[in-house]
């Protein structure tokens, strides 16, 4: 049975219990914040900082701890006034002595503190959760709820793949899966550099590692489906054989785009990898076409562009009923067949089918008489695809932003927002773009965008820093003052993050220096 932590509420009046600890918030996505002061309201929480407040919608919060309350009661009726005069105070529908109330509140707070500490404890890798399913041995620091959802996904994915590709896990050899609560832990504990989203280690100790990207859960799913696919094809190949990079990565990307329905616990395949599609659209627009034979021959898949081309080829082959089973047969032959093999030059401990044979087999399998002609069909297939989702537009916008195309990026950000993206980074980046446009700054629009995005990530100081920037750019004295308050609020939220103080105007810095922070 899965443990579920319920959101508890305290009585409206809390005694001012002497507690060494401050207030804290524990989000459903596993984030934990210690805050100076927390006020519980009907639909949200108000986090009070020296320079302003942050409003956190209740639906984001799993649990909270509030050490102090108002402690005072204003009588509303003569009966209440009489009770108060007798030294009684209201508490959960009863009138009890103040001392008794303080005692009960203190006890409740200690319990809640312990509960929060227990939840928080499991975010440390040494105290990670360890649970097993039929095929996997999980170690994770995400909240238990989240961990269990992903465990379901893994099993369904395994069954779905196993059915189509006829794979079987060796008995007693469950795959170890390490699932980290945040990117920083994955990078640090896994000794991974930035830019690695997840990995499947195919030599002993065999394991899969990835992290929970809470701002963009779709990304987490993508990585899960991608990396697990490498394991599944690892099971599919015999001995120390490997598939060519275009199949390994192309199919990992194909499955990576799978969708998951938590209600029905089903996954669906064949969706678009819109981030990759954006890259391909740019490549094709620039005339940088990948030749088909070159892709089939390539042993060195180092960059996202190759992944994109490989994905598109696999997508074309898997989505067409006429080619799907042929492609499966082709892959089966490479994975298990008796063709002559050579050492993988990138990893000579592993073998793969000789290139020339693999290419000839490919042509034979799909009846290709003219490879350039087939290539054109492939390009036409890609050209028929369009970016459709909020996430796809966000990827397109970020691509354009990276390439210093702020106007085009803005168009795509707006489309993502119009499609109700829930990725706060869309709003943050768009707000930044609007405010920082040197030729035509739009601070008013930036403010609107950022204010829409803040409820999605209310504890992100960068949102307020950027909001402050936008207000400052409005230019009038009142807006400048409002902007300053937001910038100071951002620093209240994380005073030791250098990047929040870079580039601040001198009057804002002066206020901090003067002890305003």
């Amino acid at each position: 049975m899965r443990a579920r932590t319920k959101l508890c509420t305290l009585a409206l009046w809390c005694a001012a219990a002497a507690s060494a600890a401050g207030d804290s918030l524990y989000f459903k996505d596993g984030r934990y914040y210690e805050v100076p002061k927390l006020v519980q309201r009907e639909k949200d929480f108000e986090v009070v900082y020296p320079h302003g407040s942050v409003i956190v919608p209740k639906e984001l919060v799993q649990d909270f701890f509030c050490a102090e309350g108002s402690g005072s009661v204003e009588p509303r009726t003569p009966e209440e006034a009489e009770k108060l005069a007798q030294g009684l105070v209201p508490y959960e529908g009863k009138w009890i002595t103040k001392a008794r109330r303080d005692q009960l509140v203190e006890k409740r707070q200690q319990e809640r503190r312990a509960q929060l500490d227990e939840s928080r404890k499991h975010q440390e890798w040494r105290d990670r959760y360890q649970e097993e399913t039929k095929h996997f041995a999980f170690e994770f620091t995400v909240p238990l709820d989240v961990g269990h959802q992903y465990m379901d996904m893994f099993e369904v994915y395994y069954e779905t793949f196993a059915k189509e590709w006829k794979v079987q896990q060796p008995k007693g050899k469950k795959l170890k899966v390490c699932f980290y609560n945040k990117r920083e832990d994955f990078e640090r504990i896994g000794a991974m550099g930035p830019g690695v989203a997840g990995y499947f280690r195919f030599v002993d100790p065999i394991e899969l590692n990835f992290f929970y990207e809470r701002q963009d859960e779709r990304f987490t799913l993508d990585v899960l489906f991608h990396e697990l696919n490498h394991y599944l094809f690892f099971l599919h190949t015999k001995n120390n054989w490997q598939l060519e990079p275009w199949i390994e990565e192309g199919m990992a990307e194909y499955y990576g785009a799978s969708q998951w329905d938590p209600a029905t616990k089903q996954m669906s395949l064949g969706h678009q990898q819109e981030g990759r599609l954006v890259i391909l659209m740019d490549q094709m627009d620039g005339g940088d076409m990948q030749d088909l034979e070159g892709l089939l021959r390539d042993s060195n898949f180092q960059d996202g562009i190759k992944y994109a081309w490989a994905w598109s080829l696999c997508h074309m082959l898997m989505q067409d009923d006429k080619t799907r089973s042929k492609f499966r047969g082709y892959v089966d032959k490479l994975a298990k067949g008796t063709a002559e093999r050579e050492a993988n030059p990138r990893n000579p401990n592993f073998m793969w089918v000789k290139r020339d044979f693999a290419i000839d087999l490919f042509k034979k399998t799909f009846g290709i008489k003219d490879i350039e002609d087939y290539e054109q069909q492939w390009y036409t297939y890609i050209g028929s695809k369009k970016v459709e989702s909020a996430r796809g537009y966000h990827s397109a916008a970020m691509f354009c932003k990276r390439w210093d195309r702020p106007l085009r990026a803005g168009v795509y950000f707006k489309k993502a927002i119009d499609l109700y993206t829930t990725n706060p980074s869309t709003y943050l980046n768009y707000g930044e773009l609007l405010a920082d446009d040197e030729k035509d700054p739009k601070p008013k629009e930036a403010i609107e965008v950022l204010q829409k995005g803040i409820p999605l990530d209310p504890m992100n100081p960068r949102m307020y820093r950027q909001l402050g920037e936008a207000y400052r750019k409005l230019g009038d004295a009142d807006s400048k003052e409002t902007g300053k308050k937001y910038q100071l609020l951002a620093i209240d939220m994380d005073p030791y993050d250098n990047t929040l103080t870079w580039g601040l105007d001198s009057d804002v810095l002066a206020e901090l220096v003067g002890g305003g922070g």
Partner: protein
Amino acid sequence: MTSKTLRLALCAALSCCLLPVPALAGSSHVNEEIGYRISLPDDFELKPDASGLAGMVLDYYAVDTFTCSKLLPSKIGWTFERHMATYFFPERSAADLAKAQEENQKGATEEGKRRVTWLINGRVYRTFQEYASDQISGFFFDGEKKAQVAGFDATIYEMKFEKGTEIPQRWMACAIKVPNGEFAILFSCTEQHFADLTSEFKKTFNSFKLLDKAGLKLKDTGSTSEEVDSVDEDKLSVEEVLARRKKQKEEAFKKCIDGLPAGWRSFETKHFLIAHACPVKYAKEVSQHAEAVYDWMEEHFGSVGSGQVQSMIIRVYEKEADIPRVARVILVVPGMVREIEFAKPDSVGWISEFRGLSTDITCNFLEGKNDQLWDRLPRWLSWGLQEYVNNGVLKGSKLVFNPEQWEEDALNDAMMEQRKFEGSNPALAPIKPVKTLITTTPEELWQGQLGRFTQAQCASVVRYLIEGPGSKNKKTGSLVTHYIGNLYDLVQQVDAELEKDKKASAGGSSAGASEEERLKAEDEEYRKRREQAYEKVAERLLEDAFQLTFKDWDDGDWRSLDNSWAKYAEGRTK
């Protein structure tokens, strides 16, 4: 021996028997600058500014670093070198941070330095835990215990390294809350030996003493950045650039000489300032070698560009272990006087004695002459050239270039692997056809296990062309200079075109344009920029340079070259 002496000797002998034998103890370390004392475990000694301490990060927060001379054996047969480091995380308020940003925003100092040196990284770290979590890779905190050290609250951490390491490790750290911040002592260790060594770590932790009850002192500068220089040399005339180079050289030399530690001397040669702690005889050897490399580069590659090669400073230490290895953040500015830190290697044979020196001199020369060209040299040539020059040894007044031991071994191995190679792609062969070496992308050339072989082959091919049979052959005699010359012309041409395009796009104004028009213009500008992307231009340049240089070559010529080089190479690996 007199009877008195004998009596004294006997007394001494008796005394030794009666007194308890003193326990072996490590030495004590005092840092007066920061203000602390600790005792060190046996076999540990201070190693100032040591870098590469197996994962320990050394930056502004690191105070002292130590190494242990006794290596630990491991189950996989490798040995593990233990290290220790101390850190100080000063207490700073948000107001301090804001004040520092305020200072920094005033711009660089008159000497061109950053005003505040501790605003590094994206955060200000106040505790060891924060710092390690961000800066040290490969571990998780596997234990945390509260303790008391020297009367202060402390936390003892165990840090477990499992993934990304061949030897499982467990480090121990003690973070002590001193009055004005947190002081930490960190030991690295293997998992295997951790239990045996824990008591020695704790002994060091417990030995910690503040020299001043008020706390520790802040580090003096901790500056890790060089000068901040923002002059755009493209806007200067040739005479102005020359004058600027001269001034940069004079200032850098003076600063070096004025700042030399006690016991150091210096002298100037035509292109170098030699500052040395080693005996003057060796310093002169170093200077002679340096000048010989410079002259050789001038003779062979002087015409590759019209830039001014800046002088260099060579610091020659007494021994290799003395060379400080601080991670410097060097802002590269045109004409800056680079420094080489050098010492006679502890062992030579596998690689040549002056390898490190020659690499830096070659790079400095080529960048100075023509930095655009240097950037765009194909990898086989830039790598091969560097490896070739690295081998140079001065015999009399002449540089003699013989392959280093590693190169011979690598080529030997490559040739053995080549006999077993059955693949169809020559780019993946251990020994590649020379044409493939010249035309294949660096990514493909250097992938996987092949990198070592390719490196050795590049060095050997360049040697063959510059001084081997290739240098005497009509077809290949001046191949390298010819190729570089063609590339140089092409680079000039392309740079001129890029400059023209850049000016044309900058001149355009979007004032009064509609949103749609601005968008269209932005898309167009991006397309143009994409066409001019460095990788595309580089690819085109290399293709064109190849076509120009080898336009008269046919398959027979390439086969002859391969056969001739192979014979040459084989003769030099035995």
